[in-house]
């Protein structure tokens, strides 16, 4: 009973904030509604027993992607009113494309069938999900059966990082930077110079 209630609350808020994302006039508000939608979707995942997906949704999508969107929206001066022009004009075509996609999805789900050997080869590695939580199960798979792939993926990310730094980092001489050690190492002798100023002479 409570579960159903919670589900409807999360679902309703998700759908409502989804609508607000595309209809909000202020792009910053749109991104904030997107974050709300992510949070409620995470709640839905929790209800479904997929707590790992819920965590990833919050950590990755809210923590990184949505905040990045927010930064982009706030830093770049994009004229969203201009982008929105002709919305009604494209509505029929867009609606048609949406309907076609919906029909295709319905067709696919209607005739879904697994390859005969698929279940066999998948089931061999997955721990019993009645005994362990799915985060635990994923971790066990990732660090045992997929250990090699996990390490290679790490190397791929390392290359991405090296590449980004190599292609964008420039050492610019002549830029004034704060060097705390040098500041602290300054003494009176190195920074203050006492001069005898003759009357009416100047330096």
């Amino acid at each position, binding site marked *: 009973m409570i579960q159903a209630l919670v589900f409807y609350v999360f679902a309703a808020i998700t759908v409502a904030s989804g609508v607000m994302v595309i209809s909000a006039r202020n792009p910053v508000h749109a991104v904030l509604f997107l974050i709300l939608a992510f949070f409620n979707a995470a709640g839905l995942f929790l209800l479904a027993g997929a707590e790992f997906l819920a965590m990833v949704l919050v950590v990755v999508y809210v923590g990184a992607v949505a905040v990045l969107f927010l930064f982009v929206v706030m830093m770049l001066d994009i004229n969203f009113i201009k982008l929105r022009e002709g919305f009604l004009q494209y509505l029929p075509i867009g609606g048609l494309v949406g309907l076609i996609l919906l029909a295709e999805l319905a067709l696919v789900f209607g005739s879904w069938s*697994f*390859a*005969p*050997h*698929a*279940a*066999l*080869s*998948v089931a061999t*590695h997955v721990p019993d999900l009645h005994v362990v939580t799915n985060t635990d199960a994923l971790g066990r798979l990732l660090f*045992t*059966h*997929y*250990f*090699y*792939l996990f390490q*290679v*993926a790490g*190397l*791929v990310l*390392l*290359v*991405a990082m*090296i*590449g980004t*730094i*190599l*292609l964008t980092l420039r050492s610019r001489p002549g830029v004034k930077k704060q060097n705390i050690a040098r500041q602290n190492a300054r003494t009176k002798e190195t920074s203050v110079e006492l001069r005898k100023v003759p009357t009416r002479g100047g330096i």
Partner: protein
Amino acid sequence: MELPNFSLALPEIFIALSAMALLVLGAFRKQEATQGIAILAIITMVVAALLVPAAGGNRAETFGGMFVVDGFAVFSKLLVLVASSLCLVMSINWLVKEKLERFEYPVLVLLATLGMLMMISANNLISLYLGLELQSLALYVLAAYQRDSGRATEAGLKYFVLGSLASGMLLYGSSLIYGFAGTTGFDDLAKVLAHGGIPVGVIVGLVFVMAGLAFKISAVPFHMWTPDVYEGAPTPITAFFAVAPKIAAFSLLVRVMVGPFGELTAQWQQVVIFVSVASMLAGSFGAIAQNNIKRLMAYSSIGHVGYGLIGLAVGDQVGIRGLLIYLAIYLFMNVGTFAIILAMRQKGRLMEGIDDLAGMSKTHPMMAAAMAIFMFSMAGVPPMAGFWGKFYVFMAAVDKGFIALAIIGVLTSVVSAYYYLRIIKVMYFDEPKEALDRGVSGSLSFIMGVNALLILVFTFVPSPLVSSAGAAAASLFGG
């Protein structure tokens, strides 16, 4: 859960750890350590090359069947390591002369090589993709290494966008194969497909995977990026592009086609034949109008890919042996030619025009002789190794009854002989406008000399290469 057998992947683990150690070393010692790091990277590759045969000549799998070692892998890995280390040797001099010393360069070459070794040993669609991506990502960055040059950044961006598209196609194909066959492991795929009743989805997926891999070896119709990227990328990187990734992607293609999809030979054979013929034609006719030697080498490499694919199209042990011999000879011809291109300087500037070679026979007689050897070899003139490379591939095709394929190969070789011989004519008979700089660096002359010698000697001592390639091909079919 017992531990996987790490010793099979010893060369890969060694390279990965060294690359990370060199990265840390570079971060502390800054750019002046570049030369030292490059030398250490070369030593790493040499040590890895010594570890490769020790890691396993017999077929063995590890990491839950994701990683396989066999005679074929050992042969291909040795070729890749030789190619990468020779390219790095050529790069050191270039980095110093162009004042582009950055320690990330040797590290990225090392990581790209690591990706290639992983590709060669891939025994699962996921490990195939990750190895390929590790390799490609490092290569995209290397293509744009000269970031202040417009052409290099254009080359890098073009390669990145088109390469990502190819990776996407490969992934799409893999997902179809997984969806219809229910597994990503090559061994399981072979078992599932051996039952017969192969769904159409698997064949569609296979074609997509082939398209992705054809892009990586720059076979027609996925070759459009090659001339632009080869021209724009820095020359030592172009030399690297032209050999190492192609050998790795070729090995991967062979392993995928012969291993899990061996049952579908009739289906993929026609695709490979088309790609092979189209590559031979595009390579030989496209190069005729080129005046930039790097573009010419790009078209030449497309043509060579076509000849190599004949070996795969034949699809039996003899064909794969021919392909491996071809790849090995291709490696030495190409590295040697690029060493000469890197030595073409006028007043310190690198030259890339074919006209700039004029009069080289008078100013640099030895270099001109080496270039003549490489060009004759690429054209397939008999005493040189290049002739034997083509010979083994064409003979395999004729034995299996692919006579039309062999005839097209011979005809396109004749067409391509035109532009290889044109280079020799320019070097020996044209009057120079401006002479090339004297004083070629020791490492470049060494590479030219050794490669020219290897190409001449092969005719008299062919057995080491031919027998090891034969053993490698046999290991692929033995299991």
